[in-house]
Structures are given as structure tokens and as C-alpha cells.
């Protein structure tokens, strides 16, 4: 039976040598499918490597800026020179900084100095000047040296469009030296 079918398909005298078109097509399809899968997996791995590296740099950059803010906070308070914990708001609030070693990277800083509207993610309403209450609006120029605990959000944006990514660091910060 099997032989009969075979003969119908490949009649004697017209029998084809080598691989049939169907077999070649199937093999090619298989190759292409598997190859594409492998290619895209590799591509994804390479992209992820780059993304991971960028994220690592972003973390380092935002950590560096947080360290700079801490350094400013630890200096003796001199508002006229933008130093000391009380100068943090004036010096960093709503300012943007270039992220070191991160091409196109920028870090935007926001300080939350109104005790009543500190975002929940930063602990919500709280006493920032340690006067015993949590209803002061310290978000103005004259409040400079009243700030003792500074809730901050440092947002680093990096990558090239449309692959723009961001990382947000939320921190409380105070003076640690005396």
C-alpha cells in the first residue's frame, strides 16, 4: 500500500533525486523560525545588557547627587553661600542636574517643605522643623534655616527617545554631623 502511494507520487522514471521542495521548505521554515527566535533572544539579551548598564549608571548618578545633597547639609549653615541643611531647599528644589556618565541623563530634584502636603510615599504629613507640630509651610525663601528634615524626590531620566526611562529616588535627609 505504502509502496503504491509512493509510486503514484513518484512514478517510476519520473522519480526525483535529492530533497523534495516540501522538505526543503519545512527545513527552511524551521531554520528561519528557530534562527529568528535565537536572534531576537540574543538581541533582547544585548538590549537588556545595555539597559541594565544604563540603570546601574542611573542609580549611581542619583546616589552621587544624593551624596552631594548630604554633603551640603553637613556643612555649617551659611544660607548666603547655599550651605547647610537649611540651604537645601533653596539650592536644590526644582532644579535639574546632568547625570554624570549617563548620556542624556538628567536628574530633577523636588523638595517637599510644606509639612501638610508631604507626599504619602515620603511619610505624609510630618514635622520637618521639629517645632512639635506638622502644619508649617516651609516652602518659601524665608524658611531656609528652619528645615531640619528634608523629604526629597530625585528623578533621573535617561536613554534616547522613544526608549526614555526614569528612576525615582525618594529620600529623607538631615544633617549628620555637628
Amino acid at each position, binding site marked *: 500500500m505504502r509502496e503504491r502511494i509512493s509510486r503514484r507520487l513518484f512514478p517510476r522514471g519520473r522519480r526525483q533525486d535529492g530533497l523534495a521542495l516540501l522538505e526543503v521548505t519545512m527545513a527552511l521554515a524551521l531554520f528561519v523560525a528557530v534562527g529568528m527566535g*535565537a536572534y531576537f*533572544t540574543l538581541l533582547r539579551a544585548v538590549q537588556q545588557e545595555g539597559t541594565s548598564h544604563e540603570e546601574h549608571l542611573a542609580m549611581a548618578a542619583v546616589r552621587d547627587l544624593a551624596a552631594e545633597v548630604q554633603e551640603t547639609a553637613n556643612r555649617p549653615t551659611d544660607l548666603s553661600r547655599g550651605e547647610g541643611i537649611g540651604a537645601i531647599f533653596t539650592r536644590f528644589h526644582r532644579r535639574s542636574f546632568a547625570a554624570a556618565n549617563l548620556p542624556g541623563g538628567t536628574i530633577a530634584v523636588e523638595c517637599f517643605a510644606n509639612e501638610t502636603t508631604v507626599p504619602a510615599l515620603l511619610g505624609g504629613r510630618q514635622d520637618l522643623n521639629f517645632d512639635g507640630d506638622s502644619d508649617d509651610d516651609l516652602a518659601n525663601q524665608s*524658611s531656609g534655616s528652619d528645615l531640619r528634615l528634608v523629604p526629597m524626590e530625585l528623578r533621573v531620566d535617561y536613554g534616547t527617545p522613544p526608549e526614555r526611562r526614569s528612576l525615582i529616588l525618594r529620600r529623607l535627609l538631615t544633617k549628620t554631623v555637628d
Partner: protein
Amino acid sequence: MTHCKQPSIVLEPSLLRRDDSFATRSTCGTSRKRGAVMILVVLVSVMLLAFSAIAVQGVLARSVSEVTQRQVFRASQIAESALARAVAEMKYGGVVVPRSGSGVSATWQDFDSGELYYYTTVDAAAGTSVVRAWGRVAAAATRSNSTAAPDAVTWDGSGWVVRGVEVAVRDFAYFPESPLFVGNGGIERPEGGFDWNGTDDLANPSTWGTVTGSPSSYQSSAVPMVLSSLDHPADYLYGGSEPPVATAFPHPFSLWTSQNGIGQHNVDAWFRNSAGASDETSGLSPPPSTPYYLPGDLASPDHPYPVDPQVPDVQSYAWALWNSYGTATGTNRLGSGSHSGTFGDLANPSVTFVTGRLRVDSGETFRGAGILVVRDDYDPNTQTNNLPSTKADFEIRGTFEWTGLVIVSGWAPAVTVDSGGSATVVGGFFGEDSVQSGGEVSLDSATIIFRINDEFRVLYSGEVFRPGGMVHDFLPRVGKEVVGIRQL
């Protein structure tokens, strides 16, 4: 299984023409090739699939690693934020044993995308505190609901990424180095201090305006201040009564000290306006002279009112004293009102607290030695309402004589030397608003009110503060500094 047909040797011409045996041989070889190729294709495909699977695993592993890295990063930042809060509570809030939450034990508190936790242990004898702080971020859909500290045996950290940090905080005493220290914003505005307005640039002192008028001012046009940096040696000790006129002495001590530039500006403005002159030292008796007078250089230690950022918060100083001596034997505790008498002497100094007003009536004398604290009744360790029921108020109508340190701090404190009154402090004087007035948004209210209408001598003496000096052992360890840090 298919077997190849073996070629047979047949000498029939017809068969030789067709050469079927060759054809048969050829078909068999092709099948082998096809089989080999198919096996090769399958093998390569399997290899590619295996490679892809490995690559996918790698990608997934890296992805997990990235997520974990982010979680560790966040947990670390939360832990450091917890630490900042704890240190700030110790340094500025007057809290002796900071802990997360408002209960008697620390609790986990929401923060960022996770939770924070911290507690403090204090070694009072060694003057050190240790703060342990953690941040935790959920790492699994199901996780423990442990409320314990991560260093407790009952802690169950399953499902969390936890990072902790520990700091050692050293307490240290501050030795006053100037006769008179005014913290925060300086002197209250009605007496001639600094007034903020919309055009002031915090970073540019030249834009800061002073109050040129004297609305509701109690201050006379002269400021009868006598300060030892000009006329008394640093080791002068006081036995009471009128201090003798000192001989000329090259005093390395500043007249005033302020905690920041705004306070400096306020003190300066207060002198200028109260004395009704452009010279910020014109109210002083005797007036300073070069080289101890460099008003043009705000950063100079020789400026009449130099900034001393190392001075601790005066309110914290008063709180620390209250914590240490509030209930101690030998401490004098006076209520609000008129007082007179002697509270300690050079041989037996003491700590004296007056909660509320200390008024020395005309014809009366209040004298003593050691540390005198005029305070309000707010205690940050037990209260949170920011509402002291009594303010610190120091009013001298009679005679006040003190050797050691005098502190007036609290909610809108005031110092008044009425006409006919006389005040002499040998040692040092600290004055500061506790910033307890609540709701203030400007530094000009975070000050102390001075109404000096008669003789007010503040004669610095390092003798009382130095190790072995009469006040040295009373000085509170109010300075807090992080001296060690490690990951947990």
C-alpha cells in the same frame, strides 16, 4: 526500516539500457543523503533551540537580577531615610530614644514603595546612642506579616528584600566660647531685626532689608550692653555686686555669636536700629575697636556678631538639661512668678530651672552660680501638641547676678531689663526661640525678644566652662554627631 536493494548483475540488454540497478543504487545513496541532511537540520534546530532556551534563561535571570537590584536599591534608600529621621529627631527634636511610629515600641511605617523601621539604644554613661534602621520592599506576592525588628529572633523576612544600617551617634558637650549667643533668626523684629519681604534673596544678604522703623518697640535709643570681650579677661570670676573695671586685655572672644547669617544680620540690625545709629556697635559700652571689629567681613571671627554654626540648638540644650537634671537631687525648680534669693555659689554651683516667668522685682536680688534655665513647659518626649501652657519670660526690675550659664529659651522667649534694673552674668548667656510658636513661616519670628533698657552686663569667662571649672560637669551632652556607620 528500509533496506537498499542490492544491484544484481543481469546481462539482459534491455535492463542494461535502463540500468535500473544503477538507478536503484542512486536512489539508495540519495536517501542516505536526505536522511543525513534531515538529521543535520534536526540537530542544528535542536542546538538553536537549546541555545535560545539558554539565552531566554539568561535574559530571565538577568531580569530577575535587575528587579532584585532595584529592590535592594529601594530598601537601602528607605533604610537611610529611616536613619535620617531618627538622627533628626535626636539632634533637633529633643527626642532621647527615637523609634519609628508613635507607640512605645517601634513599628513598621509605610515609606516609598516599602516600609521603614528604626529603634535606638542609649548608653548614657558612655554618651553614645546606636540607631538601627531598616527598609523593606516586597519581593513576593505572598510574604510574612512580621512586625518584629529584623534583628529579633521572631523576625520572619520571607517575601521581603530587607536592608539595614546602623549608626553610632556620639554625644558631646559644647563649651560656650562667647559671652552671648543668639540662635536661629536672632532678635525679634519689632526691636529692629530683619524683616523678610518678597524681593529678598536668601542667598544674597545685600537684598535683605532691615526694619527701619520701630513699631511697638520697647527698646530705648541706647543699648546699655557691657560685654566682656572688650573689657574683661576670659578667666574672670564673679563674686557678686558691681564688677570692677577691667584693665585692657586682648580678648579673643567675640561679642555675640549667631547660629547663621540671618541671625547675624538680625543682631546687627537690632543694634543699628535700637541704638538709632548706623554703627552696629554704637550701643555697646565701651565700643569695640580694631582689630576686634571687622563689620565688613561677615565671615570673619572678628566680626562683632560672628556665625558659630557649631553651637547646638539652644532649645535642645535646655531640653537636655531638663532631661538630666529635671528631677535630680540638688536641682532648684522654681515656678512662674517673682523670685529672689541665692541659688548656688562658687563653691556649690547648682542647676536651677524656672518654668515660665522669672521676675526679679524692684529692690529684690536674685543671685546664684551654676546653670540657670528659664524655660517653657513643653517636653518633646512626652508632648506633641506644640502648645506649652507657659512661656519663658525673664524680667529684671531689681538686681540679677549670676556666675555660670544662663539660658532663656522656649516659645517666643523674652528678656527684659527694665529701667532701674541691673543684670550681670559672668560666664555666658544663651537665648533662642524654640521655634515652638507654631505655624511661623519666617525666621523673624523664630527669635528671642530683647528689651534692654538698663544695664545688662554679659562678661564671658572661660574659667567656669573649662574642664574642672564650676559649670563644666553640668554641661549637657547636647551635640550629636554620627561617628560610625555600618550595614546590617
